[in-house]
């Protein structure tokens, strides 16, 4: 099967190019924050950034910073700094990279205290991340998030105030349990919303100002609009050929998840319009769509463009995925912009892993059916157990319930050393051949 040798380019959405500029502008703003006298908050996991942005606090999402470093292939310095302090390679590489930034920051501060000149290079992005004035931990599902934040606090000598929002896992064992329904869902939603109220009080303590609820309401109205546009565009990918790929949606994560709210409605309007135009003209995300695939697992941030090109060469349109299609303000209708707390809490609760396997698998199977996929490629990210936890169960369900082929490969979120290219090549090729065989039999 020599299809890999042919040069076929991924037909990426043009409108997503703006995301690159928005991302750069955002990080420039972060790096200037201290000079501009802004308070800086570090947080991971849930998208609490609107709470911070409304209060004029500079927000730094740990995963986003690690992902940015990896996407720019500048993650190694931070990871080395973390390893030098004793953080092991098997730890979540998002956390390891971000903690490496904290280690670097503290190291430079200590060097300055002792008079040793060790001014960070302006290009050293690990050192460039401004230290936090506060930490908010609001992590769904993965225990790593809370422990990562706690260790960050300890790295800064426990001098940085920290606030924990506990977001329980939705186990869903009661007869009334299901996606967005049941007693467990209702009670858990209210529990998280109550904590968000207290989180706002914590923010008020840090800023010394009353919380600007009107600004938050306005931002949530924009987020709701942007989210609906994003989902509308995603839904159009049921078309054949699919007008956009999973990798386009990966590039669009930052705008919906952690970039400044002003601008995201325009961004997703442009994306939606381009996708609609492609559907109208029959333009596909890969030049010659032969296979339609689901991508399970978190993104391999060192490899976004690279993977997009790889699958395009196989004529494989990776259309949807757990990471992109089951997270990031995924349920805009739950948000009441005039009274946003409960809807925000509920969106935090539906991060793509925070429902137990039976519910999660049903949702994935529904996506596979909706987008009429032929197969599923599963990225077993070595240090992200939150995503790898149900993957064997998902693969089993895909085969048994839908009769589709699956293929697994090992990689990682931000540690490239776990990625094995040849394994991916041979396994994907085997899967595509199996799909071909089935088609021939049919």
């Amino acid at each position, binding site marked *: 099967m020599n299809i890999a040798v042919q040069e076929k380019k991924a037909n990426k959405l043009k409108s997503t190019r703006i995301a690159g500029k928005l991302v750069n502008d955002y990080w420039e703003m972060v790096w200037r924050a201290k000079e501009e006298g802004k308070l800086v908050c570090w947080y991971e996991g849930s998208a609490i950034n609107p709470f911070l942005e409304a209060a004029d606090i500079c927000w730094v999402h740990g995963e986003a910073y690690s992902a940015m470093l990896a996407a720019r292939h500048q993650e190694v310095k931070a990871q080395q700094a973390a390893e030098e302090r004793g953080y*092991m390679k098997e730890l979540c590489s998002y956390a390891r990279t971000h903690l490496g930034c904290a280690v670097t920051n503290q190291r430079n501060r200590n060097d300055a205290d002792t008079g040793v000149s060790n001014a960070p290079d302006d290009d050293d992005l690990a050192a460039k991340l401004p230290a936090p004035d506060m930490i908010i931990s609001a992590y769904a599902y993965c*225990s*790593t998030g*809370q422990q990562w934040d706690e260790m960050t606090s300890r790295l800064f000598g426990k001098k940085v105030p*920290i606030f924990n929002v506990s977001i329980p896992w939705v186990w869903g064992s009661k007869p009334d349990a299901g996606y967005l329904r049941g007693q467990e869902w209702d009670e858990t939603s209210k529990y998280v919303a109550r904590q968000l109220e*207290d989180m706002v009080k914590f923010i008020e303590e840090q800023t010394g100002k009353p919380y600007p609820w009107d600004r938050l309401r306005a931002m949530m109205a924009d987020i709701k609009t942007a989210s609906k546009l994003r989902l509308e565009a995603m839904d159009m990918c049921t078309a054949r050929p699919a007008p956009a790929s999973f990798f386009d949606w990966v590039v669009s994560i930052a705008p919906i998840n952690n970039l400044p709210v002003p601008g995201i409605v325009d961004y997703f309007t442009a994306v939606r319009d381009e996708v609609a135009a492609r559907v109208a003209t029959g333009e596909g995300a890969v030049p010659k769509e032969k296979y339609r695939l689901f991508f399970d697992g978190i993104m391999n941030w060192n490899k976004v463009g690279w993977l997009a090109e790889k699958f395009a060469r196989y004529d494989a349109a990776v259309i949807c995925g757990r990471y992109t299609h089951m997270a990031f303000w995924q349920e805009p209708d739950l948000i009441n912009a005039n009274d946003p707390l409960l809807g925000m809490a509920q969106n935090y609760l539906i991060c793509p892993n925070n429902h137990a396997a039976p519910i999660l698998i049903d949702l994935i199977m529904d996506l596979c059916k909706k987008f009429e996929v032929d197969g599923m490629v599963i990225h077993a990210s*070595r240090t992200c157990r*939150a995503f790898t*936890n149900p993957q*064997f169960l998902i693969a089993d369900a895909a085969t048994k319930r839908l009769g589709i082929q699956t293929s697994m490969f090992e990689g990682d979120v931000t540690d490239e050393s776990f990625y094995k290219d040849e394994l991916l090549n041979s396994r994907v090729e085997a899967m595509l051949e199996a799909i071909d065989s089935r088609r021939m039999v049919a």
Partner: protein
Amino acid sequence: MRLLATLVLEAKPEEDVNKQEILAVFEDAASRPLAYAQAWKDRTGGKVVGSFPMNFPGEIAHAAGTLPMILQESDDAITLGHGLLFPFYCGYTRSMVDQAARQEFNVLDAIMFGDHCVQLLGMADAIRMQLPDTKVIFFQLISSMCDPWTFGRAVESFEVLKNELEEFLGSKISDEAMHESTKIFNRNRQMIRKLYEMRKSGAVSLSAVEMQHIVKSSMIMDKVDHNKLLEQFMAYVEANPEPEPKGIRLHLSGHFCQAPKREVLDMIEDCGAIIVGDDLYHGFRYISTDVDEAGKPVEALAKWYMERNTGVPCPTRVQNDVDWDSFLLKAMEQEKAAGMIVLMAKFCEPHMYYYPEVKEAFEKKGVPHLLIETEHESMAIEGLKTRVETFLEIVKRRQAA
């Protein structure tokens, strides 16, 4: 099968039972937990409720008249479990899934848990899918330990867990039964803590493996029977003092959900160390804290949950106002331990997060420590032995300096 516990308890008058015989009973239960559960079930006709480590209070299930047991990593190689969890998961989770896939948990009527380590959640999902006929009850315990609402949320969590168990069993668990179970569990913890004190002072000679058998069997056996055996054991060791063991005094730290392997513990002692204290889950961590015997039982459990993290801090919880590293240094001072061996189960994320804090604190204080990463599969003991021997030489030199 016939259990050694039954044989010893039934066959001999209490006064004739010696230390080694009772330790053999503990070892038997610790080595064959599911066989013990089956024998208990056959004998009593009762229900068996398994739990995952490390914070589900067995008192609730005990008060309901069931046998609560903490499910244990098996020594068997992983087989079917490979098809459910990746090899980069800790040995405990892989072994548990493997046992479920091999239908070895059929003796269990229900499983209850409240901890939410990310790997444990993956394991729980896989186990639930493997055991469709076993009730799996979960309510996530708050792991942020010093929030204003931590106590209230912990109360709520234990209340839900209790209610769900009642619903499953079809009967209410009375406060009186909870108080009675609490007393039994406290008695058990207190006796084992006394053994820890005796080991520290040299009043009893107990190897690390023997101590593990005592604690691990307590996680498995009917607490009333375990208490009876412990009482006999205490009486025997108090009446028959042994010479104080000699060696380099060490503290063992870490290893949360699963028990350290026997060969590792034996190897450490064979190198010339004696273990005088630990904060292992299959050790002091498990029995560190008692539950209040008066008042509302569920509130007492919530208080216990919070106090045990203050008493023996755990990296699976977050609590900014307690430090595991400071606790370890203080414990070692009290134990007159000259060094510490950290046993880290490979892929244990909470431990990997906290370890640099411990390492830095120990280096700052000049207290020697050695990190050993352990695996479910067999380890290169000879290589580890060289490292431990070298470490003990370093400890000796520090002591001599």
